[in-house]
C-alpha cells in the first residue's frame, strides 16, 4: 500500500490541519482510497465549509414549504396534492475547460437532483456568464455551452424555457454555467435520501462506472491557473439518452412502493451518495465494489469511489422488491445491481476481492467536516451618482439604439432558438418575457419561472445587489401574474480565503436574507461555487437566483407585448433618477461606477401586490418590469414583442436621460384600456402606489415627446443582430 506523504495529502486538496483531523478520527493513517474519500467529502464543493455559517442565516420556511435545503432539491406545495421540486446548480469549472460536455452534464446533474425526489422535470432554466464579447475565448465558450445546454435538455425532451446571459470581463477566465430544473410530483410521492432498514439491499442503477470525472469535486474547489487546460480529463461526459431512460425507469419504479431511499450520484459520485444516505439515516453501509457495474476492467476501489460517471443512482429498496425493480431497469436496458446492504455499524465498509479496502465511520466523517468562519471585510459602499452628476448625451435616440444593441440588453434569441422550449406541450410563455410560464400538465394552473442577478450591482454593493437579485425574480414572477413561492440560489464567488471576497459573500447573503423575509419568499435549495478565480482575479460576486411562482388560473396571466393600438400606458413606481451602475453609464460613458439603485422592500411589495391584483382582476393587457436599461428599454421591449409602438410623454423635474434610463427598482409598465385606466388610477391612489399615465400605444415607433423617436424596425435591427453578429466570424 502506498504510504501517505505530505505531497499526496496536498494533491488531495486537504490542509495540514484537516489531515490531522483525519488521523484523529481514524486513529490511524488512512489508505489512499480512504484519503480520496475524505478529500471529496471535505471539499468545498461537498462540505460547504466556508459558506455553511452564512447559509444557515437564510430563511427557509413558509407554510407552503415541504422540504427546504439539505435534500437533493427544494419542495413547495402548489395545491391539489401536487408539489414543485426545483434547484439550481453550478457547473462552472468543467464548462470553462470543455464547454459542451461541462454544460451538458451540468444540466444532466440538476435534472437528476429533481427526478431523484420523485418529480417529472417540466422545465429547465439557466443563468450564464461569459467574458467580454471580444475576448478571444468568448465565442468558443458561448457556442459550446449553448449547444451543450440545448443538447442535453433537447434529447431528454424537457423544455429549456429561458434564462439569463451576461458578458463581462470579470468572467474572461472563469465563466459561470448555472442550470436549474423544475419538476412536478404528487405530495404523497416524494422521495428522500435517508437510508433505513438494517439489512436492506443497496442498489446501483443507471450507466456503468468509468474512469471519467475522478476528482471533479476537488477541481471545482480550486482556483484556475494557466495549466487548467490539463484538467480536461476530469470533465465528465454526458449521455442524455441514458438519462432519459433512467428518468423513465425511476419514475416507473417510484409508482410502486419499493423505494425506501434514493440519491443521485453527482459530484463525488458513489462516495458522496453512499455517505449522504448513510449519514442522513444514521446507519452504516457495506458495499461490495466488485458488484458495481464497471465500464472497464482493472479499476481500483479509489477510482470506482471517486468516479463522476454520469446517469447513475443509488437506492435502498424494500427487501423482496429487488426482482420487480430489476425487471423495470432491464426493460429500459439499464444496469441494475445489488451492491451492498444497510448495516447497524455506523460505518462505511468497502470490500473488493473479499478484502476490506476502506473502513470509515460515517457520522464522525460527516460531522467533523470542517466549518470555517473565514475572516471578511465589508465592501465599502460607493457614492450615489445622481441625475445631475451625469452630463446628458446630446441625442437620446442614439443612446437608446446603442443600449438596445449592447451586450447586456440585446436579444438572446440566438441562444433560446437552440433550446427546445416547447416540447411537452405546456409552455405558455416562451423565452423573452419577464418569466417563462409552463402549465401544470392537465390542470388550469401554471408555474412562472425566472433566473436573475445583476453582478455589477453585487460588486458595487453586495448587500444591495443580493437584495436586488431576490427582488428582481419576485418582480419578474409578479409581472406575469404569478404569486412568488420560493427561490433556489446558486452562489458564485471568488476565493473565500480572501477577506474581501468573503465580505462580498456575507454582504450578498445579508441582502438576500432581508429580501426573502420581507417578501415571504424563502430559499428552499441552492448551491455554492467558490474559487471562481483565474490567476488571482475573482469574478464579480454572482448570487444567481432562480424563483418560481404559481399562477392559479392560466388565463390570468400577463405578457410583455403591447396588445393593441390606442391603449393607455401606465408607469408603476417612483423614479429617483440615480444613475449609478446603470447600463446608461456603462454603455454611454464607459463607467461602471457608483451605488446601484436602492431597494426598498416595502415599496417593492406594495407595488408588486398592486400589479398582481390588477392582472388577476383582468384590468391589465400587458405588463413588463423595469430593470436593466430603465424605462426606455422596457417600453422598447414591449414594442418589439408586439410590433406596436407607443407615444410617451412625462412631465418631470428630472432630466430626460435620468427619467428614461435610470434603473430605479419596484417599477413596472402596464397597459390597459381607457375605462380600466381610470379605475386603476383610483385603486392606486387608495393603495398609495405611484401610478402615472405616460402615454398611448400605437404606430410603428417609440416616440418620447421632445426626447426621441425610433422606429421599431431600427430598434429590432440592432436588438436582434448583436448576438448573431458576434457569433458569426467574418470570413467563415
Amino acid at each position, binding site marked *: 500500500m502506498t504510504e501517505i506523504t505530505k505531497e499526496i495529502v496536498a494533491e488531495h486538496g486537504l490542509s495540514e490541519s484537516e489531515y490531522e483531523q483525519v488521523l484523529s478520527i481514524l486513529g490511524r493513517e488512512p489508505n489512499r482510497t480512504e484519503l480520496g474519500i475524505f478529500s471529496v467529502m471535505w471539499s468545498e464543493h461537498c462540505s460547504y465549509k466556508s459558506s455553511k455559517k452564512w447559509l444557515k442565516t437564510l430563511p427557509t420556511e413558509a407554510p407552503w414549504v415541504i422540504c427546504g435545503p439539505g435534500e437533493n432539491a427544494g419542495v413547495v406545495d402548489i395545491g391539489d396534492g401536487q408539489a414543485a421540486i426545483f434547484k439550481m446548480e453550478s457547473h462552472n469549472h468543467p464548462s470553462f475547460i470543455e464547454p459542451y460536455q461541462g454544460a451538458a452534464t451540468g444540466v444532466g446533474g440538476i435534472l437528476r437532483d429533481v427526478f431523484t425526489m420523485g418529480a417529472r422535470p417540466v422545465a429547465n432554466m439557466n443563468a450564464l456568464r461569459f467574458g467580454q464579447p471580444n475576448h478571444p475565448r468568448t465565442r468558443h465558450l458561448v457556442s459550446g455551452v449553448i*449547444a451543450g445546454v440545448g443538447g442535453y435538455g433537447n434529447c431528454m425532451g424537457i423544455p429549456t424555457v429561458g434564462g439569463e446571459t451576461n458578458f463581462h470581463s470579470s468572467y474572461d477566465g472563469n465563466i459561470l454555467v448555472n442550470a436549474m430544473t423544475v419538476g412536478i410530483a404528487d405530495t404523497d410521492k416524494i422521495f428522500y435520501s435517508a437510508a433505513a432498514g438494517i439489512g436492506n439491499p443497496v442498489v446501483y442503477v443507471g450507466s456503468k462506472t468509468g474512469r471519467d470525472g475522478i476528482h471533479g469535486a476537488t477541481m471545482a474547489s480550486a482556483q484556475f491557473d494557466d495549466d487548467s487546460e490539463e484538467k480536461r480529463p476530469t470533465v465528465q461526459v454526458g449521455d442524455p439518452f441514458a438519462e432519459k431512460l433512467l428518468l423513465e425507469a425511476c419514475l416507473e419504479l417510484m409508482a410502486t412502493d419499493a423505494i425506501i431511499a434514493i440519491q443521485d450520484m453527482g459530484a463525488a459520485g458513489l462516495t458522496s451518495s453512499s455517505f449522504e444516505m448513510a449519514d442522513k439515516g444514521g446507519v452504516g453501509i457495506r458495499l461490495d465494489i466488485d458488484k458495481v457495474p464497471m465500464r472497464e476492467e482493472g479499476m481500483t476501489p479509489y477510482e470506482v469511489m471517486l468516479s463522476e460517471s454520469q446517469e447513475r443512482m443509488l437506492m435502498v429498496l424494500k427487501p423482496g422488491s429487488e426482482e420487480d425493480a430489476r425487471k423495470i431497469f432491464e426493460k429500459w436496458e439499464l444496469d441494475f445491481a445489488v451492491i451492498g446492504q444497510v448495516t447497524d455499524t455506523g460505518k462505511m465498509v468497502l470490500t473488493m476481492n473479499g478484502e476490506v479496502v476502506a473502513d470509515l465511520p460515517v457520522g464522525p466523517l460527516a460531522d467533523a467536516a470542517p466549518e470555517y468562519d473565514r475572516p471578511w471585510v465589508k465592501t465599502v459602499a460607493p457614492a450615489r451618482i445622481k441625475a445631475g452628476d451625469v452630463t446628458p448625451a446630446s441625442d437620446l435616440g442614439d443612446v437608446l439604439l446603442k443600449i438596445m444593441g449592447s451586450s447586456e440588453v440585446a436579444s438572446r434569441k440566438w441562444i*433560446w*432558438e437552440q433550446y427546445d422550449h416547447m*416540447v411537452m406541450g405546456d409552455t405558455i410563455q416562451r423565452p423573452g418575457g419577464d418569466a417563462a410560464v409552463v402549465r401544470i400538465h392537465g390542470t388550469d394552473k401554471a408555474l412562472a419561472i425566472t433566473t436573475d442577478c445583476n453582478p455589477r450591482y453585487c460588486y458595487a454593493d453586495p448587500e444591495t445587489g443580493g437584495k436586488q437579485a431576490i427582488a428582481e425574480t419576485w418582480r419578474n414572477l409578479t409581472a406575469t401574474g404569478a404569486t412568488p413561492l420560493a427561490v433556489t440560489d446558486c452562489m458564485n464567488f471568488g476565493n473565500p480565503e480572501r477577506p474581501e471576497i468573503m465580505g462580498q459573500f456575507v454582504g450578498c447573503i445579508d441582502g438576500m436574507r432581508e429580501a426573502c423575509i420581507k417578501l415571504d419568499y424563502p430559499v428552499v435549495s441552492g448551491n455554492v461555487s467558490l474559487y471562481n478565480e483565474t490567476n488571482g482575479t475573482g469574478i464579480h460576486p454572482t448570487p444567481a437566483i432562480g424563483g418560481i411562482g404559481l399562477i392559479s388560473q392560466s388565463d390570468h396571466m400577463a405578457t410583455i407585448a403591447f396588445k393593441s393600438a390606442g391603449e393607455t400606458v401606465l408607469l408603476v413606481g417612483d423614479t429617483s433618477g440615480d444613475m449609478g451602475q446603470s447600463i446608461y453609464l456603462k454603455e454611454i460613458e464607459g463607467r461602471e461606477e457608483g451605488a446601484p439603485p436602492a431597494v426598498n422592500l416595502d415599496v417593492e411589495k406594495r407595488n408588486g401586490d398592486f400589479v398582481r391584483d390588477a392582472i388577476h382582476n383582468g384590468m391589465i393587457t400587458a405588463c413588463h418590469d423595469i430593470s436593466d436599461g430603465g424605462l426606455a428599454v422596457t417600453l422598447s421591449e414591449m414594442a418589439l414583442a408586439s410590433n406596436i409602438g407607443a407615444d410617451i410623454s412625462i412631465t418631470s423635474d428630472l432630466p430626460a436621460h435620468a427619467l428614461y434610463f435610470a434603473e430605479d427598482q419596484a417599477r413596472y409598465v402596464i397597459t390597459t384600456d381607457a375605462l380600466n385606466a381610470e379605475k386603476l388610477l383610483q385603486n392606486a391612489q387608495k393603495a398609495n402606489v405611484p401610478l402615472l399615465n405616460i402615454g398611448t400605444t400605437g404606430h410603428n415607433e417609440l416616440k418620447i415627446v421632445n426626447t426621441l423617436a425610433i422606429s421599431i424596425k431600427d430598434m429590432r435591427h440592432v436588438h436582434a443582430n448583436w448576438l448573431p453578429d458576434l457569433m458569426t466570424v467574418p470570413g467563415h
Partner: protein
Amino acid sequence: MKAAVIVFPGSNCDRDMKIAIEQSLGSSPTMVWHGDSELPDTDLIAVPGGFSYGDYLRCGAIAGNSPIMREVVKRAASGTPILAVCNGFQIATETGMLPGALLRNANQKFICKDVHLKVSSQNNRFSGAFKVDDIVRFPVAHHDGNYFADADTVARLEDNGQIAFRYSDEDGVVSPETNINGSCNNIAGIYNDAGNILGLMPHPERLISDQLGGTDGKLFFDNLINSLN
C-alpha cells in the same frame, strides 16, 4: 376511428402527439412500445418526434431497423395512413418508406422556433384543412432537418405533387432566406407515391390552442381525424 402512436426509447414528443390526437379524436390513441412485435388494429399510425435510441449512429437509423417499424412498413404498404413527424420523418426515410434523408441543419445548430410553411400540394387526408398555396405556421425543433435527395428524386417528388409543405415567410415567399435548414427546394414535408404517408419536420402537434400560441396544428389534426372517420 382508431389511432396508434409508436414509442421508442428516447421518443419525447409521444405525449404531445397523443394529446393532439386526443383533442381532435375525443379518445386516446394506443401507445405502442417499440418492443411489441404486433400492431393493434388501427386507422392511423403516428411516429412521433424525439431522439429514438439517442439518435446514435444516425438520426432514426436504429429505430428504422426495429421490429415494430417492419410492421409499420407493412401496414403502410397496405394503405394505412402514417404521420411521421420530426424524428418520425427521419425514421421513415431510414426504413425506405419515404425517399431521401434528413441531414444536419445547414447552420449546424439545433433550431427551435415557429416557421411559416406554404402548402405545396393537395392531399385531402393530411392537408385538407388548407388549400394549395395557403400559409400555415407550425414550430420546428430539430438538429437534422435538412432534407436531401438526389436531383432525379426531387424532380419526381415535384412532378408527382409529393411536396407537402415548404419553408416560406409569412407572405408565402419561398426563398433561400426562408430555407431555415438548407433543405432541397425548401422541403419541409413530403408524401410517398401513394399519398398515405406524410413525413414532416415541423410539429403540428405543438400548436393546438391559442394558449400555446396558435391553432394551425389543431386544424391539421381535426381534418386528419375527420377524413379518416
